[in-house]
């Protein structure tokens, strides 16, 4: 199998150019063709010599992958199915909202984390995506060119595939790449602390932490990762971090009926997050087969939001989008295609 050009950073493109006996500046030309000029083959890179294109074609392919299936929700949300390099499949969601188009990208085939409420976790883990496969989910959808925001909240735990995620962020935000503002990108994690620290150091994108309950024992039963990286320790690290004025940290909180929607939880969330300038996103639970959890009613959700806002924690309720095509939060899965 030929190596892929798409997904390489500038340094790698310069190195491969030198290895092929081409001038180092070919690397910059390649980056322009790959990330700024939308070519679909090496032969279209017209400012490269014929010999350079032949050399590149011998060892490399462009590496773009088109989606094999697209589903459209009644609310306009789309779900794209992409094949991976290793003959697996991943899903990507595109959520339109007025003039915003947010793409929710996957970072792994499946997930190792085994959260009780997540459909992706039920398929286990089948592999890591490359940086190219992550960025391709933005480059190869119909809305490419009109994407306003990117969230790393699709299949997989992004910080369990840190190298590829950091590289994809580099491609998306560098001047030689797509030159997007990192403030339009949010990476979500359940809080793998060493990887989170590296992410905070090496990227400027926003961070979202899947919190779901402030209580240790309760979170352990919902999210096995709590055993290795307790939320209190995750929050402690975040408290020690200077996010500056532009960078944002938020906490994702799926509400489960009678489990994590009580005034005790409001009180403990306030205590846990004291001192952090943050936002809480409340998410309705989208039922997953075989899971003994339910979503609370709208009144409870609104009340939970209001209680947190009254305690000066900015709290919003995330709109459920794409539920009819299983594109909503926690529902992405390619288990049937394994």
């Amino acid at each position, binding site marked *: 199998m030929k190596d892929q050009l798409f997904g390489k950073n500038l340094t790698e493109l310069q190195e491969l150019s030198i290895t092929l006996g081409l001038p180092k500046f070919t690397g910059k030309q390649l980056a322009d063709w790959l990330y700024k000029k939308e070519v679909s083959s090496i032969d279209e890179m017209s400012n490269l010599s014929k010999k350079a294109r032949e050399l590149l074609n011998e060892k490399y392919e462009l590496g773009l992958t088109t989606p094999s299936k697209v589903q459209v929700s009644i609310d306009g949300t789309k779900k794209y199915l992409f094949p991976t390099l290793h003959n697996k499949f991943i899903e990507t969601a595109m959520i339109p909202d007025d003039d915003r188009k947010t793409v929710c990208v996957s970072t792994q085939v*499946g*997930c*190792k*984390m*085994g959260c*009780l409420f997540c459909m992706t*976790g*039920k*398929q*286990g*883990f089948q592999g890591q995506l490359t940086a190219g496969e992550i960025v391709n989910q933005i480059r190869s959808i119909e809305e490419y060119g009109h994407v306003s925001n990117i969230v790393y909240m699709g299949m997989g*735990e992004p910080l*369990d595939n840190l190298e590829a995620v950091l590289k994809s962020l580099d491609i998306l935000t560098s001047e030689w790449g797509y030159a997007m503002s990192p403030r339009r990108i949010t990476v979500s994690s359940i809080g*793998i*602390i*060493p990887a989170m*620290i590296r992410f905070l150091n090496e990227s400027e994108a926003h961070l979202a932490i899947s919190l779901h309950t*402030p*209580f*240790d*024992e309760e979170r*352990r*039963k919902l999210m*096995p*990762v*709590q*055993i*290795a990286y*307790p*939320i*209190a*320790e995750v929050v*402690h*690290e975040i408290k*020690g971090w200077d996010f500056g004025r532009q960078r944002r940290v938020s906490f994702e909180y799926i509400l489960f009926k009678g489990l994590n929607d009580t005034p*005790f939880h409001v009180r*403990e969330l306030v*205590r*846990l997050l004291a001192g952090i300038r943050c936002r809480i996103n409340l998410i309705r639970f989208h039922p997953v087969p*075989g*899971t*003994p959890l339910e979503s609370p009613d709208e009144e409870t959700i609104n009340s939970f939001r209001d209680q947190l806002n009254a305690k000066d924690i900015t709290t919003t309720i995330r709109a459920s989008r794409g539920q009819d095509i299983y594109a909503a939060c926690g529902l992405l899965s390619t288990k049937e295609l394994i």
Partner: protein
Amino acid sequence: MAKAAEYSRAEIPLFSVKVTQNVELSPGVFLISWMSQLHFIPGQVVKIAIDRLQPPRIYSVCSGNSGDRMSIIFNIKEDGYLTPRLARFIAGDVLLVSAPYGSFHGDHRPAYWIATGTGISPFYSMFQSGLSDQKVLIHGVSYLNQFYFEEELDWALGNKYIRCCSRESDERVFSGRVTDYLLATNNFPPDYKYYLCGKSLMVVEVRDLLISKGIPYENIFAEIYF
């Protein structure tokens, strides 16, 4: 309800220990040990590294908490950094290890311990720490030679030690995966605790199966390799 635990440590420090033993239990799977006086709760994990070039990896302790030795089981990941090198360690080599931590704790309450492969580690630690009363151990493997500590566990636990083997058969062993065994078995007590340790797919499948058999999810504790 308890308050969320307070933590004050940034990164768990690693310290040097001398390896006392490194034994190949089955092809590609090793039990490595070192001298340690550290107190730990059976079920906890340690971070392991061989240098400071690469981040450490997390392993469940696989020894009892009353001895002067600590062990882990690891299997060689051919494309990995740590384990191919760790497999070549011999007595006297220096390993970097963290203090034990984590909250996958065994106790004296009645429980099922359900593991696949090297996921036996925390349960063997609990077993060696005297927590095996009122416990049923279900261990699933691919091949018969992967029932680590089989003789000792069989002798001590008798019919409360259930072996499941998916690719080889033996009259003492259930033929099939752990999930096949659980599907074929009924009357799991709902008030027992269920501890699961293994790869994510096994854990989520076993958890779903137990829930479908009436076990409250609150009684299921999972530790996943990642």
